[in-house]
């Protein structure tokens, strides 16, 4: 408890589990290859690197597009649009619910119930209503992420000291001015935190929706390759998705600290 790592040993400690997992994989992969030269389950790293190079540089024979980049672009575009919409909805509704007790009384219970519906359970309904195109994917992610964001934002507004609202009003602020000058800037850091936490669920819904109905996308590719047991495609794809998601998380965390330094003054380093 009282022994703390210094920056360097902390870095080493952090990398250790990764190195360990990589080593285990290498050994296991070599073992399986030795027993069965046709093993597909744990392809050696060289084979995966080869596949990645092919996917990332050579155009597909049928579509004449470079598979990895088309998939990535399609998935990221969906994610950006859907998560962006969900964030806007979460912020707008959360702000209004948090500030106006009348609206909270009217819509709060509805949002609480909606957020408890498992989004994947309504996916068939979405497919029936909105068809198999982009719209049902948009709605799925929004349905999965927005209620959480709304509730978290409303809670964040409620967590602001009441004194600040009174003070602002005593300086002549209207409800609207309190909303945009006092409340909105103060919940922005929390919004970015909430979006960071939503990245996981958003990717989950994206890949599920792509797995079921899509003709391009990271999730689509993984589930397509599953049929051929192409672990040499699936494993790099999973790693790639993880890397994308991790970089977004990292970027959002730094955006929050850069844009709202006052919110992180008391943070323990």
């Amino acid at each position, binding site marked *: 408890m009282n022994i703390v790592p210094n920056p360097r040993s902390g870095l080493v400690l952090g990398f250790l589990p990764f190195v360990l997992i990589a080593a285990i994989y290498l050994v296991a992969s070599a073992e399986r290859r030795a027993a069965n030269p046709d093993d597909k389950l744990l392809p050696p790293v060289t084979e995966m690197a080869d596949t990645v190079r092919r996917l990332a540089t050579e155009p597909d024979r049928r579509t004449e597009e470079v598979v990895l980049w088309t998939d990535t672009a399609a998935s990221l575009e969906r994610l950006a649009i859907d998560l962006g919409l969900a964030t806007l909805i979460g912020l707008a509704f959360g702000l209004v619910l948090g500030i106006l007790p009348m609206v909270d009384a009217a819509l709060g219970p509805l949002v609480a119930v909606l957020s408890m519906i498992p989004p994947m359970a309504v996916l068939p309904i979405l497919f029936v209503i909105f068809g198999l195109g982009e719209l049902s994917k948009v709605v799925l992610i929004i349905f999965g992420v927005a209620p959480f964001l709304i509730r978290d934002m409303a809670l964040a507004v409620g967590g602001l*000291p009441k*004194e*600040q609202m*009174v*003070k*602002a*009003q*005593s*300086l*002549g*602020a*209207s409800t*609207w*001015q309190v909303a*945009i*000058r*006092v409340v909105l*800037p*103060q919940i922005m850091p929390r919004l970015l935190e909430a979006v960071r936490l939503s990245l996981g669920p958003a990717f989950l819904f994206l890949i599920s929706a792509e797995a079921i109905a899509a003709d391009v996308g990271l999730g689509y590719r993984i589930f397509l390759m599953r049929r051929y047991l192409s672990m040499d495609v699936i494993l790099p794809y999973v790693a790639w998705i993880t890397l994308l998601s991790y970089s977004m998380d990292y970027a959002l965390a730094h955006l929050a600290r850069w844009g*709202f*330094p*006052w*919110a992180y*003054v*008391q943070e323990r380093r």
Partner: protein
Amino acid sequence: MSALSMRNVWVEYGDQIVLERINLEIDSGAFIVVVGPSGAGKSTFLRLILGQEQPTRGAILLDGAPLPPEPGPDRGIVFQRYSVFPHLTVVRNVLIAYEFEASKVLGQLTGKSRREAITKSEHLLEAVGLAPHRDKYPSALSGGMQQRLAIAQALARQPRILLLDEPFGALDPGTRAKMHALIRPLWRELGMTVIMVTHDITEAFGLGTRLIALDRPRHDPQAPGRYGAIFTYDLDLNRDAPVPIPRFSKPLDLRENRDSARERRQNA
């Protein structure tokens, strides 16, 4: 002009009577201090004037007109904590008051009007001694400096009444003495009415021109909420008054209370 009058004001939460029979005439330009034990309704009293709470019975008049039922720029407030906006720098914390006034839609000033407002804000910061810290965030200020900022902010809209809710309660004695030295000349200069709630009796006698004590003189053990707080003392601390009576405490006529208690028993 900023005379405040409360006429037979009662505050009740269900069965619980918090304040009863509050009659008060506050002259324009007075420095009123309100003392009393915890739970005696001092904060409720302040919230009434602030407009954050409404009396169950009675009326509150500001210069003869009914008090608006919500906080407004004619009544400034400094709380013990959370009074300043943590997301704005010191100068912007004051500037925002002018921005609220001038820019209804965006709450932001630009160009010349912004520069003028910044100049006014800087004057206020100078008055409270915060000019060197204008670009810091409140979290980088000490407790005393945060309260100075809160005062500067509250003065920006030139309120008719300045309400102080235990503003120096969380400060160390040295800082508190400095704040006393700051607030009294400010009050004299600006000629506004100040109503200050405090726990500190010395502070109350040192600052105020009039002291009001809130307490619950009657207590019914079977019905603890039956009797609310009343004014038990109302002292003139004005040393310039024709007959200076420093530290003289004059109990209010309690017979009136006894009579009304008897009435209540008969009604019950």
